[in-house]
């Protein structure tokens, strides 16, 4: 139970960071984000992504454009806003620190 909780907490923090990173490369459609996250085994089900994207957008980190699609309804293509870029930079920095911390901490065990 405790392990589960910690796992969720860890995943959650990383998830947002990863989403922002994926979007930072190019204008991205939700299912592309999902594909990448699935590959990275960070996300299992699609449904959880939509609330996250909406929240990030509402917090001003993301913008989106409607793009007509050949198959089905128009798609939302997400991109980082200026603020999103700043946040991502901070997160990048934090991640480096964390990675170092984890490496150091787990390295000692060996």
């Amino acid at each position, binding site marked *: 139970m405790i392990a589960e909780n910690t796992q*969720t907490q860890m995943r959650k923090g990383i998830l947002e960071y990863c989403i922002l990173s994926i979007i930072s490369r190019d204008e991205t459609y*939700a299912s592309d984000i999902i594909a990448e996250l699935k590959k990275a085994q960070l996300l299992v089900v*699609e*449904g959880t992504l939509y609330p996250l994207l909406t*929240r990030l957008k509402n917090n001003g980190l993301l913008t989106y454009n409607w793009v007509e699609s050949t198959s089905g*309804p*128009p798609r939302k293509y997400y991109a980082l806003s200026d603020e999103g870029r700043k946040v991502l930079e901070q997160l990048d920095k934090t991640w480096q620190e964390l990675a170092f911390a984890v490496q150091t901490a787990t390295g000692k065990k060996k």
Partner: protein
Amino acid sequence: MAGISLRCANRHRKKEIIAIPKKNHIMNKTIIININGTVFHIEEDAYEILKNYMTDVKRHFMNSADSHEITTDIENRIAEMFSEILAGGERQVIVEQDVKSIVEQMGSVQDFENAENGEDGPAQYAYNNSGSRTLFRDPDDHLLGGVCSGLANYFGVRAIWLRLAFVISIAFFATGIFLYIILWIVVPKAITRADRMAMKGEKLNLQGFKNSFEEEMTAVRNQFNNMQTEARPLVYKFRDFVSEFIYHLGIFFKGAGRILIKVLGVLILLACLGAAIALVVALATLTIWVNPHSHMFPFSVMTFEYANRLYIAGFFVAFIPVLFIFLLILKAIFNTGGIDKNVGSVIFIAWLFAVGVVIFYGTKVATNFRDEASFNQTVDLIKPSKNTYYLKLNDVKYFTHDDSLRLEIKSQFKDMVITNGNTYNDFQGNNMSLHIEKGDVAQPVLIETYKAKGRDYEDALINARRTKYIFSQQDTIFMFDRYLQRQDNAPWRDQEIELTLKVPVNTIVVIDNDMGDFMRDGVDLYQCRELNKKPDMPNAPFIMTENGLTCKVDTLVTPTVDTTKIIKKK
């Protein structure tokens, strides 16, 4: 950005349901759905799963500020996945498997919850483990629609108390029934596991209770708004409600209702039995024991010859349906008895025949009342010695020879027997009435108007003639008989007598209390006694004025005449 508002406006999912048989070897109902502007054909089973899933998803995000946007995104994504499935061109219809795999890909509400656990985001979700409960109808524990058990779950009490409350409230103008039906329509049924979990919730603290109550009120309000804005879904909702209602009614009758029905059935059986016995007794009484010349209504209406035929036919008209209901209920409840088809049709024909006989003789009796006739007879009275008249009711009752025999009053009496008292007479109804008018001669005049009905005018007149009314005068005392008598064997034909007594102006008329029921033209003895402040008087004084009869208010004691002083006059 203009696109957003456009998409949002399109957001309402409208579902049109059209049955299209598929041309495959298996016939399957197909439904056409419209997801944000794109139309798909989907099989019914698949549609049910999709609908439940979307309902769950919408509920899950209901309390999030972005619920609109999130669910639209998910719907759009599902639409896109449908398009991809159908893009191959092999199939034209979404099947159950497609929806299942899409739901798997999207993740269940449970998955969403797991992902959100411990999150401190701005969004508040209804189904996290805050212990709040949601109002649902409970499909697992229900007598009718599960409204009571749903409420019980919500408030954390036993369902029995709420059911009891509903049943009791029915006594108060059936408010409970209306409330129940409204709740049945408005409150959603707990379909999925998530619903049921939310319904049963953890223990509530006061704050949580308040919050979730407000949420529920919003949800219920939304339901109402939807009902107003979308007429078609309301129609569907009502249709669902009706079918569900009938379904539950069936279950109710199978279960608890079954005992109730049996009890009711036994009661009806007993009632039938009672009715049958009563009918047999009535028939026997009428045909064997009742004197055919009875003066009692309604038997007095009929002439003797066909009375018995009418009674017997009437008996069958009433008895056969009673028997039929008896056997039918016996068959329905205890699965015994029942009527053979041939026997049944014979009985039915017998019943029709009996009805025919009743109608035939009924109309025959009725034709005897078709016309009406009356004649007047003026009796000049002897001028009384005084200016004060006393109006009395003659309590002497004349019995016919037959009546006196039957009542064993005097077996050997030839013509009539006379008795005092008025108990027996009540059978005949009041057929005498008295008007008192201003006369233009110095002596009193009595006009007797005899009335009766008959087949035709002549018959009516004969019926009116075959009567006897006895009025007697002893100086100032006028004795009125209580009844218009029918002569022997004359059937009852609504015979009546209307008496008009004309008295000179300034005559004082003292009317006995017994006469009160027979007085017409608004002569009120009670009121007059009250005016004289002597409510216990045995009679009331009136005086004839130019404007008619009025109460004579007098301080003097009204002279009374003792009946014993009546001198017999020729």
